[in-house]
């Protein structure tokens, strides 16, 4: 500022000057707009409000954008959660234990896990085997295609800790995976125990098991391979034993049909058999030739079944031998419906 007078004014002095000037200014006449102009402006303001009531306010998009966004986010989260549960049922053990989604996510049931470990061979349903329902086939196919091999190995690893019975059966599958023929045969074994395992209640620790994503370390894998080899040998022994047992039943002809004590003894021996013996029986049927190898029914059917077809046939044979022809016929019809392609033993067909 060049004006010395103005420069000399400090703020307090300036404020005083301003106050005096303001008083003088306020003493002047306060001019106001003409009333007609006031009316015109107010009328224009009202017209604007009435003509565009929505335009004056916020649009609905602005008003509802926040709640809509929140709702969409929640929906998206829930959808992704359900998709994740469908694809990785082991992620939601708590839900399964509460029975929220037992049909889809139950990881504890061996029957539900069986298709995943069985691989594509189970899906192909060779001739002479009962057809798997379409919905279950689809679900099984999805699981088998979605689950990578290492995930299978890891899930087996966790299973081996909590479920020794299943691990003993599933382990040879991984160990002998190099040999395709043996592997496919053994994988059928894994499918076979489904009914028995499904009937048995799932153990609690299995339900609460946590998913394992870590890769299998080499030393652990080596020891596991050894165990698998041992288990495989054991399974083979069991298979041969069971094959002999079933062969004796199936091979019972008309002459043997009169030999009542033998099947009766066999029935008595097998009737109270615990669920843990069921895999062995089924595995023998899986390794046997196709005519002898009825695949295990899917879990849902197995729940309703009277047991493995061999047992059923034995019971039918008993009915026949006891002379209960009507019941014998009914049971045979039921059996035929259930296993239309199953080759009946000569003892039944010969006298029919």
């Amino acid at each position, binding site marked *: *500022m*060049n*004006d010395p*007078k*103005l420069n000399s*004014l400090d703020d307090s002095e*300036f404020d005083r*000057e*301003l106050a*005096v*000037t*303001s008083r*003088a*200014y*306020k*003493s*002047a*006449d*306060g*001019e*106001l*707009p*003409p009333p007609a*102009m*006031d009316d*015109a*402006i*107010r009328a*224009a*303001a*009202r017209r*604007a*409000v009435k003509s*565009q*009531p929505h*335009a*004056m*306010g*916020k649009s609905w998009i602005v008003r509802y954008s926040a709640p809509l966004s929140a709702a969409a986010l929640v929906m998206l989260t829930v959808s992704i959660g359900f998709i994740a549960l469908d694809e990785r049922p082991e992620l939601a053990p708590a839900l399964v234990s509460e029975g929220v989604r037992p049909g889809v996510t139950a990881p504890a049931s061996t029957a539900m896990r069986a298709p995943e470990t069985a691989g594509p061979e189970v899906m192909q349903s060779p001739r002479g085997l009962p057809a798997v329902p379409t919905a279950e086939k689809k679900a099984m196919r999805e699981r088998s295609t979605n689950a990578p091999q290492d995930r299978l190995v890891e899930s087996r690893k966790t299973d081996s800790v909590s479920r020794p019975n299943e691990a003993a059966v599933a382990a040879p599958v991984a160990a002998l995976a190099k040999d395709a023929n043996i592997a496919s045969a053994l994988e059928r074994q894994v499918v076979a125990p489904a009914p028995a395992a499904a009937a048995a209640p799932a153990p609690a620790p299995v339900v609460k098991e946590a998913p394992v994503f870590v890769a299998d370390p080499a030393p652990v894998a080596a020891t596991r391979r050894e165990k698998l080899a041992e288990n495989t040998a054991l399974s083979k022994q069991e298979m041969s034993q069971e094959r002999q047992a079933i062969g004796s039943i199936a091979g019972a002809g008309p002459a043997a049909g009169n030999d009542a004590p033998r099947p009766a003894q066999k029935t008595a021996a097998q009737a109270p058999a615990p669920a843990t013996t069921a895999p062995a029986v089924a595995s023998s049927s899986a390794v046997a030739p196709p005519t002898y190898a009825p695949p295990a029914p899917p879990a849902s059917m197995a729940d309703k079944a009277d047991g493995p077809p061999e047992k059923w046939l034995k019971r039918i044979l008993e009915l026949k031998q006891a002379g209960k022809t009507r019941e014998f016929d009914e049971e045979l019809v039921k059996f035929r419906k259930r296993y239309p392609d199953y080759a009946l033993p000569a003892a039944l067909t010969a006298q029919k």
Partner: protein
Amino acid sequence: MTDENSDEALMLRYQTGDAAAFDELYARHRGGLYRFITRQCRVRERAEEIFQDVWMSLIQAAERYRVEAQFRTWLYTMAHNKLMDYFRSNARAEAVLYEVKDDDGEVATNDGVASRTQEPLVQAESRQQGEAIIRLLTALPAPQREAFLLYEEGGLSVDEIAQATGVSFEAAKSRLRYAVAKLREGLAEYV
């Protein structure tokens, strides 16, 4: 004044369709804005036209109004812009004065306070002090007059004056200081 009755709240209410809120806003600011315009634009009819234009602009802009500054700053900024448009098209001499760089407080020598012999106030010493200051105000350079009127009629602070007129804080303060000094000097002879 509570928040509910603040200018900004009234404007938001008008935005949502409350015509009464506009009436209240208009009643608050009609006098000050009218005087702010008529004391800068010497043609009364034109001043009234500008006054009406400002309010019409406000009505049209109500839909887009956001509380980002004081309502009165927004209102007087619109009025300033309308006046500048008027000066540019009709009173070029006054518009030039706004373009003078006086950020450092310097003003052209011919824009200084009118001498007593040049002022009508000299010939009418019997008039009241209020009339005198109006005349002194008329004699002020347009930017200084505007700064003073924004302070008095609009009730804006120096910072808000700077905001409304688009100049720096220092320039706005300088304009106001010059205006007050000149008015005080002119009034001294009538007090």
